[in-house]
């Protein structure tokens, strides 16, 4: 039902959906991201990989300005979405976040019912004209996140009463339901079993036909499976960025190589 809009929206895509220039991020005095330059393409899945604490989540949160909520965080450089600087004074971060959705690393369902969790985004963005459409969006999103079968009988129960993996899938469904142009996913499958992981990967693959997806993952296999582009972060630097196949088969930077082969952490 929303296909029309999605098409409209993606008409004037440039190749670089998001382009970051000289991004530096500081938490107080500590610099967490250093000189990152990267172009994230439309209709592409980009994987961010790198050792824990290297700044993947931080960079991800810069893209939709979620870092605005951390008092001590400070960002320099520019990040452009469709050629417009997201840190421009005139930009409404709300609209930005509606276009750039996010799944957080720690599942954080609202303390509301499962249905309300998923329908929240569509509701505030007016994506459905009536209850039936809303129901449809909810079902579609939950199906996409491979959660429908498990929760279809308990949509009115609280989202916080779900298992860890279910919560994570709920958060994915919630993000998908808003139909963003870019979807940022911070380790969406970390708590999922292989089958659910497979289903989510399938969802990502579907999404790719219309949006751009950025996924943080610790699993090289997953990165290799779902992404077309991979960015390798290390100690706050973007060490290497390129086609996934290249990176995994033929890394240019020695750090990338040792990470992939399991030598540095």
């Amino acid at each position, binding site marked *: 039902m929303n296909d029309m809009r999605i098409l409209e929206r993606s008409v004037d895509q440039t190749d670089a959906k998001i382009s970051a220039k000289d991004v530096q991020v500081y938490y107080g005095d500590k610099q967490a991201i250093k000189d990152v330059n990267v172009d994230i393409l439309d209709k592409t899945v980009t994987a961010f990989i790198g050792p824990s604490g290297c700044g993947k989540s931080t960079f991800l949160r810069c893209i939709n300005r979620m870092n605005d909520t951390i*008092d001590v965080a400070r960002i320099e450089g520019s990040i452009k979405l469709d050629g417009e600087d997201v840190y421009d004074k005139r930009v409404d971060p*709300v609209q930005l976040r509606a276009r750039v959705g*996010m799944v957080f690393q720690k599942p954080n369902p609202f303390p509301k019912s499962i249905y309300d969790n998923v329908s929240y985004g569509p509701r*505030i963005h007016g994506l459905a004209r009536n209850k039936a459409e809303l129901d449809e969006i909810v079902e579609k999103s939950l199906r996409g996140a491979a959660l429908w079968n498990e929760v279809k009988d308990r949509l009115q129960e609280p989202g916080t009463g779900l298992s860890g993996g279910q919560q994570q899938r709920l958060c994915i469904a*919630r*993000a998908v339901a*808003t139909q963003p142009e870019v979807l940022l996913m911070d380790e969406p499958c970390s708590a999922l079993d292989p089958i659910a992981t497979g289903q989510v990967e399938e969802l990502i693959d579907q999404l790719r036909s219309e949006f751009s997806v950025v996924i943080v993952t610790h699993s090289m296999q997953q990165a290799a499976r779902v992404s077309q582009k991979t960015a390798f972060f290390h100690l706050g630097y973007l060490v290497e960025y390129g086609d996934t196949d290249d990176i995994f088969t033929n890394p240019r930077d020695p750090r990338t190589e040792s990470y992939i082969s399991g030598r540095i952490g």
Partner: protein
Amino acid sequence: MTDATIPAGASPQAKDSLLVPDARTRKRNASEARFRAYGLGAIVIAVIMLLILLFTIITDGIGAFRQTYLTIPVTLDAQQLDPSGNRDPEDLKKILTLTYGNMLNGAVEGVIAESGIQVADLTEKDVNDLISKEAAAQLRNRVLANPELIGQTVESRVLVNGRVDGYYKGRVSMASAALDGNTSPQQLQLADALKDAGLLATRWNWAFLSNPDASDQRPEAAGVGIAILGSLYMMLVVLFLAVPIGVAASIYLEEFATKNRLTDIIEVNISNLAAVPSIVFGILGLAVFINFSGLPQSAPIVGGLVLTLMTLPTIIIATRASLKAVPPSIRDAALGVGASKMQSVFHHVLPLALPGILTGTIIGLAQALGETAPLLLIGMVAFVKNFPSAPPEGLFDPASALPVQVYNWTQRADPAFIERASGAIIVLLVFLLCMNLLAIYLRRKFERRW
């Protein structure tokens, strides 16, 4: 470090039975039990104190809801009440309560004579004082409202005086009456005799809830009608101003304001306002609302405004604390799906903070409901006899308030007012209880852990 450094048995890992706690666990459990006992003890102390206070209030005040009445036939002598005989309301008004009082006294004497009551040493004063001074006024109003009654003999239920009433509530005894200049054992004997004759009875007293205050000589007629209205009006003002303003201010300070010197100043300011003695708010109200902006004296609107300013800090402090307690991940989640800051606050944070907001509101309103001092300066600690009209105009009419009534009555010389004061406190607590019930309901609805 070697193993020797670890005292044997000190480790919880020593392979002891689970069923037999080791020494350290026992110690910790003992301290756990103590801790828990402290908690329970604290609640028990608080509840016992409450019960003691409630018990004293209720035993002292329940009497205010009962009142002793004398039912007698009164002949409304046309000669006295309408000398001109034309039933002209203007002329009828010229007859003062004094005449009606004498008529009632005559009626009592008549009843005594008729039922053959004999009391030794009964003086005329004893008989005349048996009936409340209020009775004459009531009778006059009845006649003015219905001039046809003139010339007839009507059954009247009249209030008896406060001492005799107190006698039936255990406040006055024959012994104390002997010492008391306002009554005498003879009067009490007369009352007993009338009671035996079935003319005098102590019954449930709705008038306490609907009557206005009465002067110091008529404790038996005093009621909290105006005070209830005044308090209600003020609470409406407070509810409609303090709660939204307080919550709005907290939201701004906690969720939107950048942390800078200005917000620090506001923050310190607010907690400081909480420490300002309530009478100072009265000074403020007098200076600003009455003298500067010309609002009327003794009006619930001014009282409400002053109490609003007084309760704001309480509501703000409570609301801020509970907003602070909502985990940031909830806000992140909302922002992440493209909700605006405002939406994340109103859709997610506020409902989660609601229990705390309720607490602040309840405590703030409770405090406002029971406050007298600021009302002293804006003229609400007053004797008001005419009911205010309905809001919104009524907000500008003179009115009293429940705590004011309590304060006034506890200052009065006649001990019968102490019972009234406690009765008014009971009414006030019922008010409070209603607010609490609402809060319980809302809390049930919104409280959850995550």
